[in-house]
């Protein structure tokens, strides 16, 4: 069974890990072309989750980080790239990752 959701309903949504802790907000969706017998489709391959959410949506991560530093707040930027198969979108209003925050941070440190 499939259903449709508008992109703007996903962008900016808070993403939680399996323990209910906030990972960040949906900032971008990366799509790639998928070739099959009946033609081509663009499918979402990655979800970009970041701690600046809406600010990054407007200005990009570098500008957002600089802006917050200049405002005197020391907020470390955390961004995660979640593959489509590690995201639970059964309830698109409350997206969840299948990995815990620790796993995501370890992945980010390795990268």
């Amino acid at each position, binding site marked *: *069974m*499939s*259903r*449709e*959701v*508008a*992109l*703007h309903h*996903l*962008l900016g949504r808070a993403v939680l890990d399996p323990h209910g802790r906030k990972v960040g907000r949906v*900032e*971008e*969706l*990366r*799509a*790639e*072309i*998928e070739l099959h017998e009946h*033609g*081509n*489709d*663009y*499918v*979402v*391959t990655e979800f970009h989750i970041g701690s600046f959410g809406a600010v990054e*949506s407007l200005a990009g991560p570098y500008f957002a980080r600089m802006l917050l530093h200049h405002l005197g707040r020391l907020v470390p930027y955390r961004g995660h790239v979640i593959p*489509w*198969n590690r995201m639970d*979108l059964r309830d*698109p209003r409350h997206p969840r990752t299948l990995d815990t925050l620790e796993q995501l941070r370890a992945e980010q440190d390795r990268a």
Partner: protein
Amino acid sequence: MKDGLDLRHDVQDAQLVDRRHENIGRCDALLLELRENAPPRIAAMLIGGPARSERIGRWMTALRRLVPGHTRAPEGGVSRIPFAAVRSIGNTIELDVLRDDLPSEHLEQWLARNVICRIPGAESKKESKS
């Protein structure tokens, strides 16, 4: 066509042109099809005031209902274009459609018929164009 797309950056709100390279508005909403055990597929894009006003908020949707001609617009004045109709993606997104066939053009056509054409001189402009 590009291999990878950042949907918010590259597609949402991008300028759309038809197969004659005439502007047909911007991508007001992008619909994703969520599937079981498969990556979400980009199903369609929506063009038209109602799709945009829904993004802005309920107050905008209510305000839009006051616009005359709104109720007579086919399909609510929203054009749903399958993503398969995308021909190329660059500075603009070229679609394999014709502007005149789109329901989202209803309001513009209504304004052209009922307002613009009644302005003195507008008819002669139209004639000199054709």
